[in-house]
């Protein structure tokens, strides 16, 4: 993941230096910067980066136009960076095919997490194996490996687990989990979700009634604790 090429485009030189410093501090090695849309297009024409971070307001061409130009030739993930907090901007960006959106001023951690999430989504790792305290989960095979035994996950359990794994270390609300199974209209699924969670626990935990990996956050949702993660 850390070897992906990330192109940052912003007309503010100091911001470019800062973002480069953040990414390099986090271990990313291939950071490119451009201080104008023209420069960005030149870099892109030479070699398409793995991800683009785009400022919306630039003097020569606004970020949306640049996004359109990029979208005309590539589906590379794009994160929009804007100094305007308006919802309209956000929606315009998504409509033109941006993958995510950050409003300035952002916290370094927020930028890193978002980029990480986008990269993970765009370039899924092969052999995705998640290591928990008492078991391992092979997402490609949709099975749990506990004490040398292979226990398959049902389709719904898989959906729920994947959602939790994508947000490992963070609380995933009950609503978002239900949504991952049922889609937009999920109200009323909460009790069924609890049953699924219980089943998942039976498969991944040593003692399902005292979970250490799949934690309940009372009233809010659930959190998956991955072994070796820094959170």
């Amino acid at each position, binding site marked *: 993941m850390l070897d992906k090429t990330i192109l940052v485009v912003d007309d503010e030189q*100091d911001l470019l230096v800062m973002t480069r410093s953040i990414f390099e501090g986090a271990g990313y090695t291939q950071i490119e910067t451009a201080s104008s849309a023209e420069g960005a297009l030149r870099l892109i024409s030479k070699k398409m980066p793995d991800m683009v971070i785009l400022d919306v307001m630039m003097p020569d061409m606004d970020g949306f136009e640049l996004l359109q130009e990029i979208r005309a030739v590539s589906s590379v993930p794009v994160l929009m960076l804007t100094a305007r907090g308006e919802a309209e901007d956000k929606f315009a960006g998504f409509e033109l095919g941006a993958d995510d959106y950050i409003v300035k*001023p952002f916290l*370094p951690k927020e930028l890193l997490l978002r980029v990480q999430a986008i990269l993970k989504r765009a370039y899924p790792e092969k052999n995705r194996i998640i290591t928990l305290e008492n078991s391992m989960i092979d997402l490609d095979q949709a099975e749990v490996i506990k004490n040398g035994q292979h226990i398959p996950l049902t389709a719904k359990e898989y959906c729920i687990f994947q959602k939790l794994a994508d947000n490992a270390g*963070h609380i995933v609300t009950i609503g*978002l989990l239900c949504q991952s199974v049922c889609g937009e209209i999920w109200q009323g699924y909460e009790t069924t979700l609890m049953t699924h969670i219980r089943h998942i626990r039976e498969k991944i935990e040593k003692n399902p009634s005292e979970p250490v990996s799949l934690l309940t956050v009372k009233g*809010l949702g659930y959190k998956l604790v991955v072994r070796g993660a820094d959170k």
Partner: protein
Amino acid sequence: MKPVERFFRKYFLSMIGVIVLFLFLNIVLFFSVLIWAWQSPDLAEISIYDISERIIADESGNLTTENDLPEILQENHAWAMLLDDKGTVVWQEHLPDELPLQYTAADIAKFSRWYLQGYPVYVQEHPGGLLVVGVEKNSLVKYNFIVNEDYIKKIFIGIIAVFIVNIIVVVLLIWKNTHHVEKAVAPILRGIETISAGQTVLLPEKGELAEINQKLNKAGSFIAKKDNARAEWISGISHDIRTPLSVILGFAGQLEDDESLPAAAREQAAYIRRQGEKLRSLVSDLNLASKLEYSMQPLRMEKVFAVEMARQAVCEFLDGGIDNLYTIDFASDPQSETVFMLGDAALLKRALCNLIQNSITHNPKGCSVSVSVICNESSTFITVADDGVGVSTEKLKELRAKTRHIESIDEKLNLKHGLGILLVWQIVEAHHGTMEITSAPQNGCQTCLTFPNGQK
């Protein structure tokens, strides 16, 4: 719009009052004139009865007159004669020379009704014949009318009908006129009300009062332009602050995490970051607050499941890594889960986050925050409570006293507590909701937001 309608109703009633007064005055004046005319000196004070009484006829037909009779006639420039059954003058006093002494039945019929050769005459039956008393020419007007009863009735009813129709027509005309004026003026009055509420107006620039409407539109758009300029200015400033602030936050964060630096330097970097974060939230609050204040932020109304919305807001805090000094609980019930309200999800979440942030900011020594969302069929109740230091009575009064408009902030320039609560007020208002703050010093603070579910 009550005052405008009240004004025109009053105006209409006062017009009716004027008409009633006018009629009453006329009736009084009319009778006054009658009484005045009645009292004017009579040209003929002479009474035919008096004269008749002064002429006495005995059984044999001989006539005797009282002594003062010639005098009375003289005073009144009158004359008198007595005709027998054949129309012959049997007695006379001051009879003008030009008048004959013999009258036919036709003559008698004529003069008793009209005039005798220009002399107005009174006629009365007398034991001695027919008494005729004449007065000076042109001193009396004689009317005679003979009508049938039906005619009188019709005239009487007709007059009443005309009177009533007149009243109705006058009232209708007044009503129509008032209505006309109201139609022209009411929009202007409403426009003034709208402008005073800080909104723009667009009145049709036609009709008799087009010029006034035009000026009102101009005033409205002028105010709007000023407000817009203000909001734009704030938006511009906050935009320009954002990029430098990103750089400050970014580098400060990195310095803070740099383990090769001395602890003191890292701590200083942490101060810079924390203060930078305060600026960050102030900038975004200021921008949104000014946009909401000047109605430049369109609401994106959609179905919002408040329970899930609140969960996500709370999770953002918990995941954002709050200090160990703080705990945030969340409570709801299964029934509330399926209820939705119409609202702008992003703004509602912002309001809730601001309330939670407020509890954290005002309790630097830590506190536990409880968030609860309860929905019934008609309303959604979002409550944020903490067990922290609470709010002084004075400050509570200030918070409740609708100081939620940006103007009041400008006047006081008091941004010590940030724009958080102001923004919550604005969001609640934009959703037609209510906000209730209860608190006691050292006894925590509780804020309850109530929103109607079905509003558009």
